[in-house]
């Protein structure tokens, strides 16, 4: 069983070009029904039928959790990618029918927090837009620090500043601005929780700074927009199914297993939720663990793999599928 077995049929109600690299897509239920309620930080998995290839990418919901008649996501175009975001940018038009999963939240607000401190980099802004609507309605103090490469790429910066005023601080690299994490994190009231979503390096710096300043780990939350990395093609034997499959260079192991018709669980497709965890029966070679789920010990044991993002190089890989 996996979240993407229960898809919701939607119609694209609007496509908005936010800036040259980001588009916003709005969805309504095909029957006009209400969509499921959700909490800020949740994402949906969007199924894309691209000329015979089925792609499934997770995108954070940026619409208000209190709005049930439509959902909105924003997608950054990634020309080096395998094409999911390119498909969204080039093929998806208003009126088109698509399928999405129910919302899943792996990045929720800690509702005990006395204050929410949000740090966004680039497209990492999306989950915070929904979280701010939620925090605002619950009446809990929050503050957003939003950094972008350039003014022209800073999606929603102006509208967020208009809507939430002092709660929002903006920084653009091309203006020579940047967030001073040390000062920011050392000047927060007790009971504050910090949330960060953005490029890998930014997440690492925030987590390191917070740890260094003695923040409890439970008060530090982050989400990687991890895309399944591409690599060399490789062969895998699926022990239960008794078949050999080939994982293409631009395909994830999860996608290759799905394409073979072998059942496998999944949810986030981004190495975070743990659903796709699969036992390794035999491994002669090296597993490239790209997930955020397994710990060091589990990785070293070579007994588990997360097929949604991890790959293999070597002689033989046999999985318990």
């Amino acid at each position: 069983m996996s979240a993407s077995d229960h898809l919701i049929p939607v119609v694209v109600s609007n496509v908005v070009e936010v800036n040259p690299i980001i588009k916003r897509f709005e969805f309504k239920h095909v029957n006009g029904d209400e969509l499921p309620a959700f909490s800020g930080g949740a994402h949906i998995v969007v199924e894309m039928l691209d000329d015979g290839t089925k792609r499934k990418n997770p995108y954070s919901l940026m619409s208000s959790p209190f709005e049930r008649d439509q959902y909105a996501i924003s997608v950054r175009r990634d020309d080096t990618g395998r094409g999911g975001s390119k498909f969204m940018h080039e093929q998806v038009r208003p009126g088109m029918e698509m399928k999405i999963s129910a919302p899943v939240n792996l990045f929720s607000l800690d509702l005990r927090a006395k204050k929410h401190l949000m740090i966004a980099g680039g497209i990492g802004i999306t989950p915070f837009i929904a979280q701010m609507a939620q925090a605002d309605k619950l009446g809990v103090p929050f503050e957003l620090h939003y950094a972008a490469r350039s003014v022209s790429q800073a999606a929603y910066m102006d509208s967020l500043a208009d809507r939430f005023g002092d709660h929002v601080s903006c920084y653009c690299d091309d203006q020579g601005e940047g967030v001073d994490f040390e000062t920011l994190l050392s000047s927060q009231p007790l009971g504050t929780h910090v949330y960060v979503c953005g490029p890998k390096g930014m997440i690492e710096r925030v987590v390191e700074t917070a740890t260094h300043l003695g923040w409890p780990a439970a008060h530090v939350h982050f989400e990687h927009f991890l895309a399944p990395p591409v690599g060399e093609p490789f062969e895998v034997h699926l022990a239960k199914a008794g078949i050999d499959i080939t994982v293409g260079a631009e395909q994830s192991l999860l996608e290759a297993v799905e394409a073979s018709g072998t059942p496998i669980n999944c949810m986030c497709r981004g190495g975070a939720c743990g659903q796709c965890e699969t036992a390794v029966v035999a491994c002669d070679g090296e597993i490239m663990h790209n997930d955020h789920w397994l710990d060091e010990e589990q990785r070293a044991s070579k007994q588990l793999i997360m097929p949604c993002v991890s790959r293999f190089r070597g002689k033989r890989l046999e999985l318990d599928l």
Partner: protein
Amino acid sequence: MTIQFKDESFRGDFSYANSPSNIPRFPFPFPEDEYMYSTNIEPHHAARAGSPFENAFDVDEHYVAEMKDRALVLAEDPGRCQALPHMETAGWDFVELVMVSKARDYPDLFKLTIDGDRWHWINKPLQIDDTFTFGDSSTLPCHPMEYIGRQVQGDHAILDQRDGNLWLDAGIITAQADWSLDFDVGMNFFEWHAPVPLAHELGVFQRALKFLLTLPQGQPSRRLNWTLTVNPRLDTSPENYPKWGPDRMTVTPENIGEKVHLRVELQTFWRLPRSNAILFPIRTYLMAMNEVVTQPKWARRIHRVMRDLRPELVEYKGLSRYHPILVEWLSQFDDGAPTSPGIFPD
């Protein structure tokens, strides 16, 4: 189908009993002739018309009486219903889930009319007709969890999810099998399960937690758990131990069939949408051994399960005092014939 609600008691004269037609729909908890802990979780799909798995929240002939018993417990001990301050949103999620499900599944008993934030709720069996503003607790007589918890059979715990764990941060618990909300409130999944023997070593809890942390919205799961209770008493809480502990001394070979009850918990797991919390209903079904053995398959199987039960489980479930008498009594119904797989009667 209209349900005839029974006027009965779970204390004092213990007039509780199952009607003959209610017996075959009992959620018998043993799919095989032996029992051991496992991560026995399956999708909570609608299954088998007439069974307790048919609807999201099963309503049966004991509904009204159970709600009266809950009100008695809460009047004596308000500590049975507790919610930490951050659990209000989850309380509203619970209200929505129950009202929407019951109005859909039992339209002749419950009616919900939604007009924006204005909700109108009619609960015919309990004679409730209320209008309130969804999300505004000042428009309800009490906390949303308590309001709806008084209108749905079974205990309900609500688990907050954070730091890769679940936290027992709210609950309305008046019919529990010997555990205390007041003691467990604020604990995490491993802490509140600490007293359970054997299951930790089997990795049952590790696997169950991983599963629950990624439980998706709209795809609830369920499992069955069981114990035995002397007399059809719902409130077997540690707080009340002096009232029910001594009952175990009253079991004799003559009265065992009517005194000892199989107590089954239909536990379900629901991801709540606005709070990202998990709702954990623990719905208790009670059936006297005399009623169990009316189904030949169940009679044979329960004898085998009880006879071969691991001593650690006999001890943990508090059966030691009367376990040998029970096995002896049950043996008269077991002719050694094979039993069919699954829990439903033949």
